[in-house]
């Protein structure tokens, strides 16, 4: 092994180490952000469709469904519905009230969000 080769290996090792530390750093930062991902709001949604910034509520006499408003294509927020069809404003993916894809580019259905209803406080906690 000559000096040049040694230095190259050393540099590559530093690069790998740097990438490893970099990943650890960003993972740690991301984890602190993830912990904030739940929202508690009054449980008073109207029958029909309510689109909020982070989630979409579909309430009928029989059931309550909460979908993520984040498009499964590239993460844009869906901001409204027309005839109970949600169109992503960024790239035109369309979803029905069950979150199923009606037309692409999205391929996955909207994420069905878990929620917990506190009847005493009449609140609903949504896990985004």
């Amino acid at each position: 092994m000559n000096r040049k080769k040694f230095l190259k290996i050393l540099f590559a090792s530093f690069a790998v180490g740097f990438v490893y530390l970099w990943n650890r750093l960003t993972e740690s930062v991301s984890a602190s952000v993830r912990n904030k991902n739940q929202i508690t709001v009054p449980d008073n949604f109207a029958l029909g469709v309510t689109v909020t910034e982070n989630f979409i509520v579909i309430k009928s006499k029989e059931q309550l469904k909460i979908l993520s408003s984040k498009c499964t294509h590239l993460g844009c927020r869906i901001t409204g519905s027309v005839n109970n069809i949600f169109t992503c404003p960024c790239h035109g993916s369309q979803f029905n009230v069950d979150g199923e894809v009606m037309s692409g580019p999205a391929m996955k259905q909207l994420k069905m969000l878990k929620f917990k209803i506190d009847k005493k406080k009449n609140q609903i906690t949504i896990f985004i």
Partner: protein
Amino acid sequence: MLKDKIGLFYRFWDLPFGNIATASFIIAVLSGVLLALPFDVKNPYESISFFLIVNPSAVFFRNVHYWSAQIFLMFTVLHIVDHLRRKTEYKIKDGVWLRLTVSLLISFYVMLSGFILKADADSQQAFRIFEALLNEIPLIGKSISLTLLGSEGDLQIIYVNHIATATVILSVIIIEHSRIIWPRLSIFTYSLFASIVLGYIFTPMLHDGLHPVVKGPWYFVGLQEILHWISYSQLVILLTFIFMLLFYFIKKFPEQISSYIKKLFAFAGLLYLILTIIGYYFRGENWEFVLPWNNSYKFISDFTPQSGFADIEINDESLQSLKTIMGRKEGCIVCHKMNGFESSHNPEVIGCYSCHRGNAFTLNKNAAHAGMILIPGNLNDAHLTCGTSQCHSDIFSRVNNSIMSTLSGIVSVNRYVFDESNSPTMLNHIKDIKHSDADSHLRNLCASCHLGNEKTDWKMIDELSRGGGCNACHLNYSNEAIQQLNNYLKSPRGMASQKVKVQKSNESKVDFPKIHPQLNLNISDNHCFGCHSRSGRISTNYEGWFETLLAEDELKLFSYARNFDSHPEFISGSEKPKQKLSDISQVQLDNNKKEYRLLTDGRVFQKIQDDVHHKAGMECIDCHIAQEVMGDGNLHKHKEDQVKIQCTDCHSRNINSISYNELDYESKKIIDIRKFMRPGTEFISTKNDNIAFTNSYITETGSTYLITKNKKDSLTIKPPAFVCTEGKSHKRLSCNSCHTQWVSYCVGCHTTYDKNEEGFDLLDNKEIKGSWIESPSDFYVDYPALGVRKNKSGKEIIDTFIPGMIITMENLKSDKNKKIFKRLYAPTFSHTINKNGRSCKSCHNNPLALGYGKGELIYIIIDGKTKRQTELVSASKTLVKSVEIQKRDLPDGSQVRNLNSNYTGRWTFTPHFDAHKEDNLPKDAWIGFLQTRDVSSTTRTNTRPFTVEEQKRILLVGACLTCHDENSKVMKESLVDFEKILKKVSVKCVLPR
């Protein structure tokens, strides 16, 4: 010399692209340093909106920063194209070429991070897309994303990278590549001049999220189009990587391959340019393809000329008035100091821009008003105003689907009448109608009464108002507001705004109204009256007016009709503030004690009994709840499908209730606004969908009350009478079958098409050649006909009907020789409810109730021995007469119910109107006497007239009623179990077969 300079532009490829790009980069860096002073990375959107309004210097540097950056990008691309064209890449060292290749990505990063830093709605979406794409990079994607962008909602990292990291790296690469620090002074001057001029004319605007269209920065609109077609976003990363790789290896490949790669780049560039144009100009809402002039996303409004240059000076007082509204500052309030708002729409809370759009971030008059919506709330643009995601988007989508917007039932029935549809029950929308006979008939006579009809004047809602979207119900003017508006409209400027020709005036001072109308919950019956006084005439019925065939002139001829003379302005159609329509249009005519009312449209109505709820002071909205009137989001075929409420929601011994905590957001909001909250009480709720009557309450003892929404009167709600709920004889009857005291009969309408008549297209609001002419024949008032309606659960109930269309149409638009005759009855809820209900005879001995039309229904008893006949019933009259008629033959088939009796009985009917030549039925009949017709005789598929068996059964009771008083014991017992009574019928009873 001048020739040389002009010639330079002819020699396009001789332009110093690299120098211009470098100069523009330096300008962008320098202006960026100054722009950092007013920019607040913690509140980026608010800080930009603030300095756009109040700080022209900051606007100048922002504009220069923006345009120099765009020039830098454009000329960098041109510089690359130029050198690839000239094959100069071979002169560059490999290391420098590698860094230049990387710098392409850095350049786009600097541009995009600048776009994201304005933090408006488009920027936020761009951030999410960029983040998602970077996350797709294998292994280190998330780390790259976090390092370059930071976390959503915090722009600190991206700001640092934009102003420092990326800029410094780019500067080093540029210097290394160009080997110059300063470009030529002349190039620098031209570049600066270009940035300043472009910045002077075009201010890059903020996008607020109120518009449903999202577009990225112009250089990524093409990519946005590509992403529309690519489901696997990893492909974009891969393609970018391949392009970068190809770019890097372009100088390493043999020349022929390099040439192919360059051609590929050229082709891709051209394609990208086309996609960019399509994306910018031809992409509309919900990714629909639209032509640029129909695109509601106004490209031009993004770059409003001179918007950075204020027309007025801002003072300390104006600065104080600039509150932060929905995360932004709005400049409108500096000039428009209006008051009169209700709390929900206070501009200090929602600003002006939320409703009126335009450009809120400028004090330049023209720029501020460009793209403004003067009358917000019309359905065609409500998605940009009332119905945006930040306001009433859930309601707007419901209203759009509601029957008052679609008119589905009217369109369907009309087409059915014209034989253009096989069924009267279809899903249609008024905006989709074409120009067939049926549709042109609607366009000509009916199509103005839908919520989508655009309100184009500023007037308050009156009898002549039609549509107007949200305004139709919610627009209200205070006395002062309407007075100021009228003063303005009378001024030359105001008249000009109404396109009224006025003489030129030197008057410079214009008294613009200072009091804004309100959009509130004070929905009065007058809001409903314009549309609902027509067709079914629910509004006039409710108030106790029925339409006559009297003409306006005939009424005016009455010498004692002085009220008309004292209010000529009303007749002419203008309005007075807060003046109740009924106060000035009602006239008591002394000679025959009849009271008439002249509507603004010239129709004359006569006074009759009003609805019991109206007598109690209730208005339409006291019963009709928001979730019903504005729709439930579903499309309905007929109006009754959309109706949620029913009589038994309130008048029942088994009332549904709901507590405040269980209410939906909308109901709670209404209660909070109306201050209807009563601690510890429950609300009555609908049996359909359990929706609260927000103006009701149930006490702990179970008493039920209703508070009138506008007048705030507390009314006791009474349960139904014993007779309504007990017994099985009437269990199929709807409440209104008994409690409807009158309906209007409009029979024998004759309609023709005159191609030479001047007409009006009510849907498109334009004058047309050719018109349908309608001539009513007879109006009268009486009890409704009864028939059978199948409800949603399939149960048949007896309900009220009126002639929906007894119409002869001749000389059709499509075929002047064609003639159509239709006799259709329609189910109705006439809104003429009385407390006591109708008498037994008014149904059982009434030809109208059975559907035979007006006339005499007589029960004849024949003595088998003496051959004498006795008429026992005068149908709709309450008195029983007994007249012996001599020398008449026994009718065939008559039969005595009681086998021991010598008597036989039979019904006869003598119609009031002559038989129609088309079907030989009396003009107002639904069915023939003791005959029937199928469902095609009605305007619904779930309704029908009585069968012959049902008629006989009704008339059987009618026969009893000829002798027995309806309050007699036997008749009351018959309500409980009529079959049981029949079994013990007396020998004296003579019943029809």
